[in-house]
Structures are given as structure tokens and as C-alpha cells.
């Protein structure tokens, strides 16, 4: 009997081309779209070389060959910070205004007067005609670098003014490299691109949307829910067996749909989830089963109107998706900082956290915690659903 119901429910689910089609379209369309929108953002944001014009004269090399010193400054990952163009001031101004981004410079370091090193940046006029610059990151980096050279010149001028006898000693100290006082440490993880969060949320939403299929199992097996449910109820089928077989059939179809969507992301679009893909697939499969079980559980409350149950599921999918970062990638962190309990009870946030844990920490304690929650919640929903579906009264005399 179990096998018979399972096969028939499987056929019904496979023949529901609209549901399968839309679910697939959701993952394929939004996956492609996210890929197009975010593929290059992080790559473009990675440490960029700042093209800078440097204006020098004979006086400029008081602290050594300034052009060469500037060329050696680098980011912590070894990327050179500055692409130096040594030129005269007039040409530097033309380069600053140049419309061609390849040729234009971000700023001019004017080293002609070593006692007053200047940095020239471009700005925009506000409504009152005043020039302003809100400080793009490249401008701020240049400002920091120039700040260091200004320290040197200020040190010399202050020494001449206050302790002229120590000038020789001060000049010597400038040649000496101070010991590094800042220990930089990068965050570790498989893929540090924060935009990968959108893909976590996408898979989570795909998984949670499977809840409508779980709800369909209840509808097809309960007399007051559908004509098919009435027929099922009067047949000689154990209800629990019917529902378990139905759930199993739904799981086979919906997990397959999620897997196809995930395959497209992993192998088609080559999204780097930063972890062993086997675990990514496993997490997605278990998340889908959680979604199905949630729909199965909520639809057991037949005393609530169908519309209300639909709305509850919709609130869980969309609201949970929003709170787990579908629209704003750091939303989950914002919730974690303001009200962490929401992240513990929101299934979407837990699923997203499982993917995040896989990426940043690998298979470890945090990942297992999330998985235990997902599996535990699935068991609770299914067993509660099975208990709730028993001995229901639909009408009284």
C-alpha cells in the first residue's frame, strides 16, 4: 500500500509541471540575475591601484628618492597602492581633469615645497558654489600617505624651531625604519565575497518555497480540504501511511528541483560557495525537506482559513527571506546585533547560517549546530503534523 501511494503521489507531483516549472524558473532566473549583478562587484572592489601624479623638484628628495619611495608603498596583500606618474604641475592638473579613466589620475602629490607638501584632489561644487569632496576611498588613501610625509617635514621644522641641536639626530631617525606597530590579520574563509550571501538566500528561498508541496499533501488527504481528500479519508488507507508516502514523494520531486537549481549555480554559473559542494548539496536537500515539513505542519490547522494558512507560509518565506538577507546582504548580521533570538527561530536564517558556516569555518561545530536545528525542526514538524492529522472532526450532527 505504501509503495502504491508513494508511486501515485510521485506521478501527481511530477505531472504538476507548472509548480516544477515555476520553481525552476525562480532559481534559474534569479540565479542568473544575481550572477550578472554581483559577479564583478567584489572583484572590482578588491585593492585597486591608485593612479597618482607626483610633482617633484630638486628639493623634493630630502628624505630620499620620493618617486621611488611612493612606488614601494603597498597594501597588506602585497598589491602596490600607487601607480606613479611623475610630471609637472600643469600637466598633472590636466591629468586630474582627464575624462579618459585610463589616463586620468585620482590626485596630485605636490612635493615641490617639502615644508608644505600638498595633495590636490578633484571635487564637485555644491548648491552654494563651494567645492566639496566626500572622500572616496582612493582619495582617503592618498590623504593618509601624504599625511606621513607631512609628519616628516613637520618633524624637521619643529626640531629646527625648538631643538636645532638635535636636527642631525632627527634626520638620522627618519632614515631608520620604525618597527611595525600594527599587526594586520585578514579574516579567513573560502569565499570572502559578501555578495555570495545573496546565493545563500536564494537557495534558502527555493527550499522554503517547497512548503507549498508539503501543504498539498495535507490538502489531498483531509476530507474538508478537497474532494480528493474526502475520497482518501473514506478509503481503507491508514492516514499516517498516506501522509508519509505523500511526503516522501514530495521530497523526491522537490529535492530534485532544488538540486537542479543548485547544479546550475555551482556548475553552470560556477558560483564559489567556498566549501566542499557535497555539503552544500546536502544542506540544500535538508533545507528543502524542512520547507516541506513546515508546509505540512501549518496546513494541519484546518480550523484556520486556507487564506490565513497561505498568508502564514508567505510571511515565513518572504519575511524570513528578508530577515536572512535576500534584499540586504548584511540583514542577518543586523538582526544578530539587535535581536539575535530572531536568527535562532527563523528557519531561513538558520539555513543561510549553515551555508555561511560552511564557507567561513568549514564543516565544524557551527555547521553541525545549524544542521541539528534543521533536522530537529523537520522531525518536530513532521511528527507534530502526523499527530495533528489524527481523529479530526469536520462536521457534527
Amino acid at each position: 500500500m505504501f509503495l502504491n501511494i508513494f508511486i501515485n503521489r510521485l506521478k501527481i507531483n511530477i505531472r504538476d509541471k507548472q509548480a516544477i516549472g515555476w520553481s525552476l524558473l525562480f532559481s534559474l532566473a534569479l540565479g542568473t540575475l544575481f550572477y550578472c549583478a554581483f559577479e564583478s562587484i567584489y572583484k572590482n572592489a578588491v585593492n585597486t591601484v591608485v593612479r597618482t601624479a607626483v610633482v617633484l623638484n630638486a628639493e623634493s628628495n630630502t628624505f630620499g628618492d620620493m618617486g621611488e619611495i611612493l612606488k614601494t608603498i603597498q597594501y597588506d596583500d602585497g598589491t602596490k597602492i600607487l601607480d606613479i606618474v611623475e610630471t609637472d604641475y600643469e600637466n598633472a592638473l590636466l591629468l586630474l581633469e582627464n575624462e579618459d579613466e585610463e589616463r586620468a589620475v585620482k590626485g596630485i602629490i605636490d612635493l615641490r615645497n617639502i615644508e608644505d607638501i600638498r595633495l590636490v584632489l578633484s571635487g564637485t561644487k555644491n548648491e552654494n558654489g563651494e567645492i566639496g569632496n566626500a572622500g572616496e576611498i582612493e582619495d582617503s588613501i592618498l590623504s593618509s600617505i601624504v599625511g606621513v610625509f607631512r609628519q616628516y617635514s613637520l618633524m624637521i621644522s619643529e626640531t629646527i624651531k625648538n631643538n636645532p641641536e638635535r636636527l642631525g639626530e632627527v634626520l638620522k631617525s627618519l632614515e631608520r625604519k620604525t618597527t611595525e606597530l600594527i599587526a594586520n590579520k585578514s579574516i579567513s574563509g573560502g569565499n570572502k565575497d559578501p555578495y555570495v550571501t545573496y546565493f545563500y538566500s536564494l537557495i534558502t528561498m527555493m527550499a522554503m518555497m517547497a512548503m507549498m508541496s508539503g501543504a498539498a499533501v495535507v490538502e489531498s488527504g483531509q476530507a474538508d480540504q478537497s474532494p480528493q481528500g474526502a475520497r482518501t479519508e473514506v478509503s481503507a488507507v491508514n492516514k499516517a501511511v498516506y501522509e508519509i508516502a505523500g511526503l516522501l514523494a514530495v521530497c523526491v520531486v522537490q529535492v530534485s528541483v532544488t538540486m537542479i537549481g543548485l547544479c546550475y549555480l555551482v556548475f553552470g554559473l560556477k558560483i564559489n560557495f567556498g566549501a566542499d559542494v557535497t555539503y552544500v548539496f546536502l544542506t540544500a536537500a535538508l533545507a528543502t525537506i524542512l520547507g516541506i515539513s513546515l508546509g505540512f505542519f501549518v496546513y494541519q490547522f484546518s480550523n484556520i482559513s486556507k487564506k490565513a494558512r497561505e498568508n502564514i507560509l508567505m510571511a515565513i518565506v518572504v519575511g524570513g527571506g528578508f530577515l536572512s538577507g535576500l534584499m540586504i546582504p548584511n540583514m542577518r548580521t543586523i538582526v544578530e546585533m539587535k535581536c539575535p533570538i530572531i536568527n535562532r527561530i527563523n528557519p531561513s536564517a538558520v539555513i543561510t547560517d549553515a551555508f555561511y558556516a560552511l564557507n567561513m569555518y568549514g564543516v565544524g561545530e557551527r555547521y553541525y549546530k545549524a544542521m541539528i536545528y534543521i533536522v530537529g525542526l523537520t522531525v518536530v514538524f513532521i511528527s507534530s503534523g502526523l499527530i495533528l492529522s489524527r481523529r479530526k472532526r469536520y462536521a457534527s450532527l
Partner: protein
Amino acid sequence: MQVFKAFMKIVKSNFVGVILYFGICVLMTIMVASQYGGNKGTRGYTNTSTSIIVNDNDESELSKAVVEYLKSQHDVDMAEYDEDKVKDLIFSAYYTAYIDIPKGFMERHLDNDPLEINAVFDTSLPDGNYVSLQLGSYVDGIVRFENAGFSLSEAIINTQKAVEPDSFIDLKASSKGEGSTHSKTFSLFLFLPYGIMSIILWCLLPAVSRFNVKDVKDRTMVSSISANERNIALFTGSILVSSVVYVGMSVFVSIFLKGKIFSMKWLLSMMNLLIFTLVTVGMVVLISSFSATSILKSKDIIINIISLGFSFLGGIFVPLEVLGDEVKTVSRFLPTYWYALGLEKIEKGAVFNDILGCFGMEALFGVVCVTAGLAISRVTLYIKER
């Protein structure tokens, strides 16, 4: 009237969805509004300011000076977190860097083997590198001044003086359109299309589709209600619902724009939003011309694909300037792109004539949707009648 009443009844039954999407918009708006406490960057030069966490274990004269300097440059939260928490916060870009000043830093900062300040950040991104560079140059400056014979307090004052950007940065007016910061009006209006699309589609799509279900449509047709009356009732209902959504969203956003209401920027942004709202109604006409039962069954997925897709691709959730050229080529076919572009032009001080093109492109999309929707309905009817 009967059709209109039934239409409104269906709309009312979707109220939970409206509340949910409105709630999402409210949260987004509050988050955006909370970012505009000051009035930065309109005059003179201001360094990039990011959010960082500082943990001062030393609490000495030197460490306090470092903390004060960082506070003058960034949004600093004083807190102590474990390594995992720091990683979570930096990965999600909630904070750019975590600065940990060790105990005993002041005593040992001049040693040959000094205690180091720990800076944790994503080393492949410039923001964290900038914070580290800035911090490094500040501390390095103090040490050099001390090595040159100045006292710690003199070293702090001199270093502060040297790194003060106002004293050495000259700004040249540029026509290149620099600057990535936007006004509050721009930021608040930018998110609205997502809410407008979601709410209007959520309310209208099931209602209009319900009337297009074959049985319902046939029953209406054989009743005393003429096809024209039915269509007028549906049209009136749709316009009424969209107007309520438009007014609701506008009033809500305007609450955050005290003093800027009725400015040219606000008026043009409102006009932009109105056109977008009407375009969304056009989208409903097009979508509902397809199989009604299919739409009713999968409305959640359809609405999510459209609202999220259009928002991500059209520059609502992701700024237009960071979208690649290929993506923008596709985006040009979406009303959200023209909405966002129009908003950017308004932000840059454009007058009505300058943004007429954007308004026109948005409206064109709506007209195409309505025309295509009507054509599909006509063709479907023709095929069925044959």
C-alpha cells in the same frame, strides 16, 4: 458595482501580504534614514568614514589618543568580540575592521620588540587597508616624534597636526561628476519601487486573475453586467488600489524628509514614483493576460521573480554605477533602470526637461505592457472562439 465590490473583497483578503511587504519597506526606509545623522561632504574635504570596532585594553594616554583619533575619522564602536564574531561582522560588511589595542601597549611601544595593535579586516579590500594605513601612519608618526626627542603629548599634538587633511588638501572643481554619496531624498525614494511592485502585484494580480478564470469570466459574461462595465470596474479598482499604495508609500517616506517636502527634488521624485506606479499597473495587465489558473497557483513565485529581478537588475538594490556594462544593457529594458536613472538625474539637480526622457522610457514600458496584455487577451479569446 458588484464586480468592483468583489474585486475589493479579493484585494482585502491579501491584506497580510500587503502588511508584510509594507513592513519590509518600512524597515528598509528606517535603516536608510538612520544613516543620515549628519551633513557630511558637501563642503571641503572629508576622509572616507567607515564603521569599525575598537577594543582598548590599555586605556593609557597613548591608547586614548589613538582611540580619539579613530573616533574623529570613523564611526567607532567600543566593544570586545571573539574571533568568530569579528569574522561574521567583517564578512557581512557590518564593520570594516576590528582594532584591538593590547594591555601594556604604551609601556612597550618604544621597545625594540614592541606590543602590536591588532587590526583584523579583509585584506583584499581597500577600506580595511585604509583604516590600517591610517592607524599605522598615526602611531608611526607619534613614535618618530618621540624618537626625535619630543614628549608623548607633544608627539601626539604634532602628529595630529601633520595628518589633519584640511591643512594640506586642495580641491579643484571638476566636471567629472565625482562623489558616490547621495542625499536622503535619493536614498529613500530608491527603495520604493520594490515595495510598490510587490504590494501592487500582490493585491492586483490575484484579483484581476480571479476574474479571468474561465468559469468566473463566463458567468460574468452571461450576467446582466456588460463586458465594458466589468472592465471599467476592474480598471477603477486597480487604479484605486495603486493610488492608495502610492499615497501610503509617499506619505511614509515624506515623514523622514522634514523640510525637504515640496522642494523641486521631492516633487520630481514623487512624479517619478507616480509614473512607476502606473507602469506597475500596466505590468499587471500584461501578466494577467496569461493563464489565470497558473498565475493564481504560482503568484508568490511570479511576484518574487519580478519584484526581486527588476530591483536587482534595475539599480534599486544594487547601485547602477557598480553594475557591469553588459548588465546595464539588459537593464535598459526595465522600468526600474529608468526610475533609478531618473532619480540620479534629479539628485544631480536636473530639471523637469532633463528627466523627461527617463519618464518617457518608463511610461513607454507601461504602454508596451498594456498593449501586449490586451493583444494577448484578444488573441487568446480568438483562438478559444475558433
